[in-house]
């Protein structure tokens, strides 16, 4: 698996990370190396194997479906870089 420039840019876009032109070259090499390493798995026969969905053999505990938390909007927006009253402020999205 060889990662080319187009793929680096596509993944970076999907990941919402801006990539500078100067970084494309080393990212190509590093991502190729990591994907080459994980390709070792292709030699394992997993045809009749179920994927692991939980690290422990236990069911999650159900809880009553009730509101049991909340009511502190001040705290929720307390760490926001830009806020107005109880709103998170972002650049204009709708014209």
């Amino acid at each position, binding site marked *: 698996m060889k990662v080319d420039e187009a793929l680096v840019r596509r993944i970076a876009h999907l990941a919402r990370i*801006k990539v500078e032109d100067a970084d494309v070259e080393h990212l190509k090499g590093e991502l190729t190396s990591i994907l080459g390493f994980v390709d070792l*798995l292709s030699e394992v026969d997993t045809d009749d*194997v179920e994927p692991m969905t939980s690290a422990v053999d236990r069911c999650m505990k159900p809880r009553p479906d009730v509101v049991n938390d909340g009511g502190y909007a001040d705290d929720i927006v307390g*760490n*926001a870089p830009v806020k107005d009253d109880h709103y*998170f402020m972002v*650049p204009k999205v709708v014209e």
Partner: protein
Amino acid sequence: MSELTDLTIASARKGRTDKEFSAKELCEAHIKTIEDANEGLNAFIVTTPELALALADVSDQKLQKGIGGELEGIPLGIKDLFCTMGTQTTAGSHILDKFTPDYESTISKNLLDAGGLMMGKLNLDEFAMGSSNETSYYGKCLNPWKRNTDGANLVPGGSSGGSASSVSARLVMGATATDTGGSIRQPAAFTGTVGIKPTYGRCSRWGVVAFASSLDQAGPITRTVEDAAIMLKVMASYDPKDTTSVDIEVPDYEKSLAGGVKGLKVGIPKEYRMDGMPEEIEQLWQQGIEWLKAEGAEIIDVSLPHTKYALPAYYIVAPAEASSNLARYDGVRYGLRVPGDDILSMYENTRAEGFGDEVKRRIMIGTYVLSAGYYDAYYLKAQKVRTLIKRDFDEAFTKVDVLLTPTTPGPAFAPGEKGSEDPVEMYLNDIFTVTANMAGLPGISVPAGLSSEGTPLGLQLIGKPFDEAGLFQVAQTIENAAGLLPAPDKWW
């Protein structure tokens, strides 16, 4: 008063109850060592001496009344991945600039409720991604141990590098840490400390900054096995706020310490004997086998055939989960925001500036393996391999009670020595530890001797699910045989 910092948690607890010293004196002695050391070691991202002294006063009042908790007045460090109410929590990342939680993680709350003193927040690899503590935005943390061959400064391991370094250097008596692929056990091995990653679900993950949710598990780093048992008992709990937290009683781990290993079946997995493994690691392993045999354990060779696939599978599962977990850092709700022309460029600029190189690499790998058309080939395949890895362990544990392996494939290295050309070189550090995370099993690293370079080496024990008590029992036997390491020579 410097000798106060040499005490173990167990002996400090006794001295404090016998009124040989006050919690305040113990706290002040540690504040002094932290002030002297932090410039050289960079173990703390932020120190909280005022908070610690205020807590120590409360501890002294409680001790006066005879109502002190399990860890009353014991100076502890908290890895800066645990949210602490009113104290900045950075995860070692620029993207969490100025983030100050309004809540306390369940584990740090358990420790505070038991009377523990928080001395500050400890350095780590950014978002716990790394094996050397070199990826922290707040600078690398150093190992108090130096190589005697060339006198080089060394990494403390990672990601819990600050936790391991501060405990080893006597800045705190114990520290919280987290382990997604080896981040408790590998730094413990590199610094001559004890580190246990409990069974997945034993400790609550609530309030711990998430890296890979199906693998992350917190545990303590301490200087003795007994101290690890004391600390884990307080840290572990059932927590309704973490749906993967398991509701079973926390045993009194201290009671299992004297159990010994007579008649115990100890498995030696042949796949952990890797090509190119240094001779001294092999010798250490053999020494561990001899120690346990001498105490009456039965040594049994076992096979875990899928061992070599654990690390590649990890580098699909962990980045995939990380890319999902770290999607929340977008400059909107907390932390860093870098403006852009529109909302998309604001996201992209914020994440480009806020994340370091290793974190970006892992987010990108994770994004790729989860993207349309590749999910089955990578993520699903890795989760199937995980089933096979777990099955290997299940099979082995029908024959043995515990497994003994080296913790790391080599001793601590110097900053810049590994992974600068190829990230995979750094990843190989976790080759012996990552299997326990993939299978959700408990693992402990115990100091077992020194390398030819005069630096600590660790042996690892892997146990059955929720058999932390069994691990402590065997680990204590190894510690008795190996003897405690001396304190590292102070150069900082």
